[in-house]
C-alpha cells in the first residue's frame, strides 16, 4: 500500500495538473476578495472601473461572515468541478495514456492501487481547501473586513471544511466513470451531469434528497428559503462516496481489461 501511495504521489507531483488546480483555487479566493472590496464601497469600485457606472452588487455585507460564506459556496460548486477534474485526471489518465495495463498483473493488488489513488485525491483536495482557507484569511485581513470573532471565523472555517469533505466524497462516482469509461470524457460527462442536476433539483426544492445538491444547500448557496440537508442528505452523501469508491475498486479488480 505504501509503495502504491509513493508512486501515485510521484505521478501527481511531476504533473502540471496540481499547479493548475492551485491556480484555480487562488483565483477563487481573489474573486471572493474582489467582491468584498466592491461591497465595501461601491462608489470607490465604480471610480476604479471595477464595476460599470450603473451596476450595483447586492447580496450581502462586506464582512467576515459574508466572505466565509462566499468561500464555502464556491467550494460547493467550484470544488465539485475542480475536485472532480482531479479525480478524472488521476483515474482517467491511466486509460488515456494506456498505462492501466501496467497496473494489472503486479504483486501490489489492484485494490491497493485504487485506494492509493483515492488517498492522493483526498490529500490533494485537502491541500486545496487549506490553501483556500489560508488565502481567505489573508485576503479578509488585508481588506480589513469587519465582523471578526473567533466563533464566527471558526464556524465559517468548519463550514468550508465540511463542504470540502462532502464534495470530495461526491466525486468518487466520477472516478468510477473515468475507469469504466476508460478515459477522461466519461468522467467529465458524469461530472457535468451531476453539477447540472444539482442546480436544477435544488432550485425545485428537493435538494436535500439529491446528494450532489447537499453541499450547496449546506453552504447556503440556494438561499435562505431552502430546506436544510438534514441527516438524510448527509447520509446520502456518505453513501454515494462509499459506493463510488467501492464500485471503482471492484471494477478495477474484476472487470475485463481488454483495452
Amino acid at each position, binding site marked *: 500500500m505504501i*509503495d*502504491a501511495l*509513493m*508512486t501515485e504521489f*510521484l*505521478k501527481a507531483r*511531476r*504533473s*502540471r495538473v496540481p499547479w493548475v488546480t492551485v491556480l484555480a483555487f487562488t483565483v477563487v479566493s481573489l474573486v471572493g476578495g474582489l467582491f468584498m472590496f466592491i461591497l465595501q464601497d461601491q462608489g470607490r469600485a465604480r471610480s476604479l472601473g471595477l464595476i460599470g457606472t450603473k451596476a450595483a452588487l447586492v447580496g450581502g455585507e462586506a464582512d467576515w461572515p459574508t466572505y466565509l460564506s462566499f468561500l464555502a459556496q464556491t467550494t460547493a460548486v467550484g470544488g465539485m468541478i475542480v475536485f472532480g477534474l482531479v479525480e478524472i485526471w488521476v483515474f482517467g489518465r491511466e486509460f488515456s*495514456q*494506456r*498505462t492501466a*495495463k*501496467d*497496473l*494489472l*498483473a*503486479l*504483486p*501490489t*493488488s*489492484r*485494490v491497493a*492501487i485504487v485506494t492509493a489513488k483515492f488517498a492522493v485525491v483526498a490529500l490533494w483536495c485537502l491541500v486545496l481547501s487549506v490553501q483556500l482557507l489560508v488565502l481567505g484569511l489573508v485576503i479578509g485581513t488585508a481588506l480589513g473586513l469587519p465582523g471578526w470573532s473567533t466563533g464566527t471565523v471558526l464556524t465559517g472555517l468548519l463550514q468550508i471544511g465540511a463542504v470540502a469533505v462532502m464534495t470530495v466524497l461526491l466525486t468518487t462516482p466520477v472516478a468510477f466513470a473515468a475507469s469504466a469509461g476508460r478515459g477522461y470524457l466519461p468522467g467529465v460527462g458524469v461530472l457535468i451531469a451531476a453539477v447540472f442536476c444539482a442546480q436544477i433539483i435544488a432550485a425545485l426544492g428537493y435538494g436535500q434528497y439529491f446528494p450532489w445538491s447537499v453541499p450547496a444547500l449546506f453552504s447556503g448557496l440556494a438561499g435562505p428559503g431552502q430546506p436544510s440537508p438534514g441527516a438524510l442528505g448527509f447520509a446520502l452523501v456518505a453513501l454515494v462516496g462509499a459506493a463510488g469508491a467501492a464500485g471503482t475498486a471492484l471494477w478495477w*479488480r*474484476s472487470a*475485463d*481489461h*481488454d483495452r
Partner: protein
Amino acid sequence: MTEPVIVAKGLTKSYGDVTAVDDLSLEISAGEIYALLGLNGAGKTTTIRMLLGMVRPTSGSVTVLGAAVRPGAHAMWSRVGYLVETPAAYPELTVVENLMVAARLRGLRGHRQVDDVITRLRLTRYARNRAGTLSLGNAQRLGLAKALLHQPDLLILDEPANGLDPAGVAEIRSLLVELSLQGVTVVLSSHILTEVARLATRVGVIDQGRLVREIASNHLAEHVRQRLSVSVRDHAAASKALSAAGFHAIRTDGDQILLTDFRAVAEPEHVVTVLVAAGCPPYRLVVEEDDLETFFLRVVGA
C-alpha cells in the same frame, strides 16, 4: 518432472456472439520460448490477457507458476514480467522515474535493479529524458525494461520486436535466448514470422481463436514442404523427359520447373542425369522449402 509454468485448460472468451478465443489449451514448460503465431484478430492478445488475469475467461482456467489466475490473486505476478500490446509510460516522468514506479509496485527497493536494466536495454543515454520524448524503439525498450526489471521467471511479451530497428530486433532476440538459457520461460506473440522461427522453441498457431497446431521448432522442418526448382533452356523437352522418368513436373513462368516428388527432393542428381541424357541440362538446381509464412497460411487455410 518439473511442473509446467503455464497451464491453460479449455480457455474460451466470448463477447456476445463473438468468440475471441475458443477452447484453447496450452502447457508451457520452464525454459521454453513459446511463440503464439496468428493473423491480426486471431486471438493472440486476448489469450495473453487471459494468461495475465486481465481478462476473465468465459470458461476454462489458467494456472501460472502453480497458482490459479483469478481476480484478487496477485502473489504470482512478482515472478512474472510482461509487455502487452504497445508499450506505455507516464510521459512526464523520466525513464528512470518510470522504472522506479514499476520497481516500487513490484516491491523492489533501491536503484540497483533499475540501473542494471537500463544498462541491459541500452537506455543509459535516455535515462534522464522524459518518456514522452522517446522514439517508438526506445519506448519499446522501456516497456521491455519494465518487464525485465525484477528478473522474472516468466516473461509474457506481446509483439516484443515492435518498433525496433533490425539491430534492436537482433539484440532482443539474443537477450531472450540468453534468458531462456538461464531458465526463464518466455511466451511471446509476434507477426514477424522469421523472428519466431529463429527464436521460439515451440510455435502455437492460433486462428480464429483456436490453437490449430503446435510444433516444436526442431520439428518445424518436417512440416515444411520441400520442392526441387530446376531451371532449363528447353522447357518443353525437359518437362517431357522428366514426365517420362516418372517425375511430376509443374511448369512455372520462365525457365523454371518445380518438382514436388519426394524422390526429386531427396535425390536431385537423378533429375540432373535425366535432363542431361535428354539433351537439356539444367543451369540451376535448388531445393526450396516453404518459409514460415507460407507454412502458416497453409496451416490456417488462408
